[in-house]
């Protein structure tokens, strides 16, 4: 009976309910786009770190987990390696560079230039070509996105531009391998070079000179199987001076602007959902106020409060579900038209969470309406009130 009443009313007033579904569809589109943008921006910032084949990251002490500020000498690597529970470590140097394809400004590509140790944590797996083999070779592994965009393949040469002192320096590197496309760091695609090569070609205030103790930014630590990451972290922390050890998640949260950006976008999503609750609640409340005499008659002729409440919830669910489905469809169609430069990623679990939240805001917004519907007295049908 409840479904009969709810569906008949929606169907016979389809224009009105469709318009309202459009409002819900717009809210859905906004929430999904914000979620996709948050995921896209987060991913562009953290991708490299989140895919590291390591469980811990070592920073210099007192740099607030800033990878750029952190400086760790080569000599510390040995100390970290000796700690019980550490399987292997990989030094990682982080800086930026520009790939130059011609003299034209349009064919340059800013990248994260990452120095890694061949065969150690920090070097991502390659999809084609081969991995880095030596620590000094002028070789590079590039992100699949760059390879696709500029049609680069293993065996090609790349020209890298960095700034050393006040001069722009150009270095030619041979592409030996291509890694998967998910290796962005600080919103730039990454290229990987051997750590000694990195130290020579990276941007730095003074031209590179041969140093006795090579300086990196961070160290990726892979722990032995069966070891507890937090215990190993404590051992490293207490066994090695002037360092700070964190897990990957903490290191990601410490990325420049990451937390502020994510909390801003999450707040925006929450406010959009709250607005959704208010809009849906308001619409159904006005609808219900108009229907009070009808509800009174229904109750007078013997329709129970349960049927009235279920019919009200069903209507809200029907309209909300239609709006969310419509909004999701529109979002995915629009997403296909948006240029690839816009960082949006529709992560399955995030979309599921967002759509579930959107489906729940209908009944949540309609709670007051259901309460009103249940409280209507059948005496209203006779123009009386208790």
């Amino acid at each position: 009976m409840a479904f009969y009443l709810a569906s008949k009313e929606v169907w016979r007033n389809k224009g009105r309910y469709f318009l309202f579904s459009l409002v819900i569809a717009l809210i859905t589109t906004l929430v999904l786009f914000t979620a996709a943008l948050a995921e896209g921006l987060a991913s562009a910032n953290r991708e490299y770190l989140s895919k590291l084949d390591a469980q811990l990251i070592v920073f210099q002490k007192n740099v607030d987990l800033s990878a750029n500020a952190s400086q760790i000498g080569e000599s510390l690597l040995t100390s970290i390696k000796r700690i019980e529970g550490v399987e292997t470590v990989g030094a990682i140097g982080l800086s930026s560079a520009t790939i130059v394809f011609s003299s034209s400004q349009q064919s340059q590509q800013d990248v994260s230039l990452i120095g890694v140790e061949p065969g150690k944590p920090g070097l991502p797996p390659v999809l084609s070509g081969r991995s880095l083999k030596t620590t000094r070779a002028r070789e590079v592994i590039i992100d699949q996105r760059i390879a696709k965009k500029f049609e680069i393949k293993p065996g090609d040469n790349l020209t890298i531009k960095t700034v050393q002192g006040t001069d722009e320096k150009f270095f030619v590197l041979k592409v030996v391998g291509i890694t998967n496309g998910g290796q962005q760091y600080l919103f730039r695609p990454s290229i990987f070079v051997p750590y000694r090569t990195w130290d020579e070609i990276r941007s730095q205030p003074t031209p590179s000179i041969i140093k006795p103790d090579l300086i990196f930014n961070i160290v990726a630590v892979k722990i032995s199987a069966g070891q507890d990451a937090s215990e190993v972290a404590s051992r490293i922390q207490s066994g090695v001076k002037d360092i700070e050890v964190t897990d990957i998640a903490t290191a990601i949260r410490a990325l420049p602007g990451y937390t502020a950006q994510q909390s801003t976008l999450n707040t925006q999503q929450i406010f959009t959902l709250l607005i959704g609750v208010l809009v849906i609640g308001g619409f159904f409340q006005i609808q219900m106020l108009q229907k009070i005499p009808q509800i009174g008659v229904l109750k007078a002729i013997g329709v129970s409060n349960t049927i009235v409440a279920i019919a009200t919830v069903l209507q809200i669910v029907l309209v909300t579900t239609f709006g969310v489905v419509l909004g999701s469809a529109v979002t995915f169609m629009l997403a296909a038209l948006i240029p690839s430069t816009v960082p949006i990623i529709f992560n399955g679990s995030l979309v599921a969470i967002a759509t579930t939240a959107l489906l729940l805001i209908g009944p949540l917004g309609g709670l007051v309406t259901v309460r009103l519907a249940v409280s209507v007295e059948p005496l209203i049908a006779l123009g009386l009130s208790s």
Partner: protein
Amino acid sequence: MQPVLIAESVSKIYSNNGSSVRAVDNVSLDVKAGEFVALVGPSGSGKTTMLAVLASLLRPTLGHVQIDGHDLNNMNETERVRFRREKIGFTFQNNNLLPYLTVQENVEMMLKLNQKLDKEGRERARQLLIWLGLEDRLNSLPNRLSGGQKQRVAIARSLIHNPSLVLADEPTANLDSERAYQVVKVFSDLIHEQNKAGIMVTHDLRLCIYVDKVIQMRDGKIEQVLTTRQEIDDFIACA
């Protein structure tokens, strides 16, 4: 013949800020099957409150109401809702019909509500509507009907589920005289034909030509009960 409806010494007292108002004061009445009764009186005489008590929409402060042998005082809210659904048919002054159901669906709703809607029930609803002159309106929504047509649909709805008691609250209040007479005549004919007990609250005394008994109320009390045709006709003539 045992009355379908028996109301014994019914009072409804409202309390407000320490003072009390007797909307219905010690009223007793009965209605038999096939009897159509008019409850008349000026505004504030307590006739609608009495109707609400008889319809199990209000609990009396004092007294008892029995319908078909069931004492309404012994029922909880859930039982009262079910009792209304099964045993009582209603026609109201306004907002009678659900605007999103067609004429036929509005009538069938009482059968659906009582889980009695089948092929035979649908046909019965159709025939009743045809009998009421609504053959070409079966699939119309209420907003396409005139006031008189709406009330005829409401009458059909009040009778389709075979209730013991049919109650009508000012069913002609929004109709012109000609349509008011038509509607009440139809109501009266159906109540007599289907052997139901019927009560109609009205302020229009001329409509009493179609009823079998007139109960006149004033200040919550029964002022007079007219039971013969002559008494009723004289009452209408005086009015």
